[in-house]
């Protein structure tokens, strides 16, 4: 019974847990509910992935209505992997959250924080698991609306404008997506993704389909913060509470990239997207620009969360670059980086959350001497930074390896050069922080909200280091990550073709 309904449980669990939090209106109870739900979701995701890897894709008919009339949840290698990423990050982040939320969110709003977190989780998982194009929109809105709330809970008043800006962009993106889906519905008469894929095939020259494609791609690219549609992202990440930043950075943009993949490769199919529309050549310049502009701007940031946010823009560029190569290996690299970057950025933002918990600031100048005071936290930051640079022995290296290999496979050696060059920029912005943290003397009397204590509490350190260990582990033993990404890419490239 439970096994058969796993796909539904994945969504229903967090979706129902959220109103429970509102009912109780207690911080402690809502925290406990979120914690249990997050870990249960992870267990469900692991079970789903195992089942998919063992016995192929699962199709779940909601309410017993057969697709294409009813809503279908469809789990294959690709989204099972993304579900695993999202739930794993959710579980780690929520284990870390309690002290950080207590510090950064005002008491009366804390249960709301947990409620919105659960809704956001449910939304992201829903986007990933559903096999219905309109359902994607619904869940996209659930996750977006709850993330506007989460961002606006930040202490800084600028969090409000950041959330507002995100709201505007997010709504435009979602609307574009909806217009696209509407046009597709008009032409094909179906919303089920698998069904759409079949019916679109003969319509390759249709002008409505083409317009729909453009609307959908632009809409989702806005959600994914693909350069130059990224301008909502840095402020949103910088002013949101630390926990929210870590969670969103590691999951939200990843899910949007997944939707892009789904639309390109399943709905339209590789031949349609890459051969007929030359999508690779359209995306590639933006991806490369993202890599360089994101990294270059990151170098000049004074706020470290903002710096990491710009670095995320660059990293999204890497993922899209992999996809735009339009080969099985390229898509593998893109999916792999989705997973790896979640680990890297999750760890880095959690480390910054620890710093913020102690000194109440993540301005570069305020970090002077923090290396000595918080050796474990900054150790985690340096390790995460090395992973971001792509030093061997970390996941960042594995991503670069596949990305460059994919470029070389196509014979585009200049792309390989560009990837290597842009990693040099990462050295610069990571090491700026290292130098200040370790070699500058701590200021007298500390920063204004400084609580004067040393290392962050264990509850926060353990999840941070768990992600760092994952960074190293999956950088050395790549059977799970590379294996799954390869399978996922094959199923994507094969299915639509």
């Amino acid at each position, binding site marked *: 019974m439970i096994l058969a309904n796993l796909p539904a449980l994945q969504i229903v669990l967090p979706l129902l847990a959220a109103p429970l939090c509102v009912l109780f209106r207690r911080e402690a109870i809502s925290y406990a509910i979120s914690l249990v739900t997050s870990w249960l979701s992870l267990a469900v995701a692991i079970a789903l992935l195992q089942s998919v890897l063992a016995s192929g894709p699962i199709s779940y008919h909601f309410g017993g209505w057969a697709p294409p009339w009813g809503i279908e949840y469809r789990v294959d290698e690709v989204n099972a992997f993304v579900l695993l990423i999202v739930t794993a990050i959710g579980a780690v982040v929520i284990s870390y959250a309690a002290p950080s939320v207590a510090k950064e969110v005002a008491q009366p709003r804390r249960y709301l924080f947990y409620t919105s977190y659960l809704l956001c989780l449910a939304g992201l998982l829903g986007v990933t698991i559903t096999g219905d194009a309109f359902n994607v929109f619904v869940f996209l809105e659930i996750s977006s609306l709850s993330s506007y709330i989460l961002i606006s809970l930040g202490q800084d008043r600028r969090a409000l404008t950041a959330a507002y800006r995100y709201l505007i962009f997010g709504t435009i993106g979602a609307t574009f997506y909806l217009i696209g889906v509407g046009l597709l519905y008009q032409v094909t008469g179906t919303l089920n993704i698998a069904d759409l894929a079949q019916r679109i095939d003969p319509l390759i020259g249709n002008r409505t389909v083409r317009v729909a494609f453009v609307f959908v791609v632009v809409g989702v690219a806005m959600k994914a913060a693909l350069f130059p549609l990224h301008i909502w992202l840095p402020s949103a990440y910088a002013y949101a509470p630390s926990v929210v930043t870590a969670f969103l950075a590691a999951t939200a943009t990843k899910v949007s990239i997944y939707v892009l993949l789904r639309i390109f490769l399943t709905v339209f199919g590789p031949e349609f997207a890459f051969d007929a529309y030359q999508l690779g050549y359209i995306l590639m310049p933006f991806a490369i620009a993202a890599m360089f502009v994101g990294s270059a701007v990151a170098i000049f940031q004074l706020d470290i969360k903002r710096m990491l946010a710009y670095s995320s823009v660059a990293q999204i560029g890497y993922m899209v670059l992999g996809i735009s190569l339009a080969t099985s290996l390229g898509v593998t690299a893109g999916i792999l980086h989705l997973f790896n970057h979640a680990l890297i950025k999750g760890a880095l933002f959690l480390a910054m959350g620890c710093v913020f918990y102690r000194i109440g600031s993540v301005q570069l100048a305020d970090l002077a001497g923090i290396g000595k005071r918080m050796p474990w936290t900054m150790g985690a930051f340096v390790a995460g930074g*090395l992973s971001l*640079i*792509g*030093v*061997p*022995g970390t996941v960042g290296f*594995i991503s*670069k*390896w596949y990305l*460059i*290999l994919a470029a*070389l*496979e196509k014979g585009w*050696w200049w792309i*390989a*050069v560009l990837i*290597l*060059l842009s*990693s*040099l920029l990462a*050295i610069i912005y990571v*090491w700026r922080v290292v*130098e200040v943290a*370790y*070699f500058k003397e701590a200021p007298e009397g500390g920063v204004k909200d400084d609580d004067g204590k040393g290392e962050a509490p264990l509850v926060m350190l353990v999840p941070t280091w768990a992600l760092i260990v994952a960074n190293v582990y999956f950088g*050395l*033993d*790549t*059977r799970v990550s*590379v294996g799954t990404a390869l399978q996922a890419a094959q199923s994507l490239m094969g299915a639509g073709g």
Partner: protein
Amino acid sequence: MSVSTLMLLALAVPMVGAVLILMSAGRPNQRECVTLVTAVTLFVVVLQMLPVVYAGGRPEVTLFTMLPGLAIHLQLEPLGMMFACVASSLWIVNSIYSIGYMRAKKEANQTRFYACFAIAIFSALGVAMAGNMMTLFLFYEILTISTYPLVTHSGTQEAVRSGRTYLGILLGTSILFQLGAILWTWAEVGSLDFRMGGILAGKFEGPAIGLLLFLYMYGIGKAALMPIHRWLPAAMVAPTPVSALLHAVAVVKAGVFTVLKVIVYIFGTDFLRESGYADWLMYVAGASLLLASLIAMTKDNLKARLAYSTVSQLAYVVLGAALLTPMSVVGGAMHITMHAFGKITLFFCAGAIYVASGKTQISDMDGIGRVMPVTLVAFLVGSLSVIGLPPLGGSWSKYFLALGAVDSGHIVFVAVFMISSLLNIAYLLPIVARGFFVPAKPDSGSAGIREAPIFCVVPLCLTAFGCLLLFVFADKLFALLTPIGGGPG
């Protein structure tokens, strides 16, 4: 104990040592005991492996598969065996010296210092035993990162700036060029194994070979081939034991070691010679060799002069590899050991003088030999070995290198070697001469200077003695290394 267990132990011992050192924070005696015991244990472990390699064994261990078809893999071969011996033996002497130096200078953060040192040795052994280019690259980068806190040990503005140069050049070149070269090799060949005779035959041809060689040579920043040598002089702000680590024990040696590995086992000397695309490397190395010697002469700071001398001596090894004859390759490999013992002696002496008198500039060192005779005699021995005069080790490697140049038909490089030796004399021996024969200036504050602490003096005597031993027992080293020449010695 089986050899594969020993190989794993050789990696485990320094790593465990590092952990124990960290656990001994705040207890200096215990910490330094741990360091010494670890160093000696490691040396014993490494020595146990030596007979196997002499007997022609090439033991292998596969640790785990990192990427499909690409494992983290260890394999012992003569070149790596030699590097492992050099690094592990000099670590003992260097540790003794560190105790004397760090205590005398009352340096802060000594636990971090010893722990990073142990990790650096761990990665040096990983580099030495690497069985494919991927494994080597992994340990190569760990070495860079673990030595960064050592270079910036003092934490001053100057140290941070030097650290930036150090990390920027080493990490930058290795990611931009070396990783690029590795990926290119992997994409074309589908293998990164070290195999006698190389793995590129039939996969690369024409100018691509030259370009790949360029990427590898400039990707191995630790070999300090001009013009990417800047990090080495910059790193002289570090405490002297660290300079010894950089110049003799691990870092630059790992660089030229990798150069030899790549040329012998990735390209293959025959393959490169037939392709004709390696000629540029000879000229670049030759130029680097002479230029660095010339720059060394202009430096008044003793450590800076020694640093440029190292740049020049490293170019000997690269030139040996680039000449591509069996004799020159073996000579280049021998030069790793010979130079290590000579240069570590010189740095130990420089540090001892600094500890005893606070002097760093050569022009202030008049008459220093009269108050520190032991140190300066050791300096003389080290200098003669670096110059390449009998009865010291350095003479053999330079002899073989010159023979290799004759074999290769590029007689001009025999001249380069000779001119460089003369330059070595010109920048090293005046220091000794001033120390002994020029009386101290009355106002130079030389009164009351005595020999450095015993922990500093004993190691430098040991390494100076080592230079002598290497002259006498050079045949053992030669016999070990002959197989890598690929032909009859």
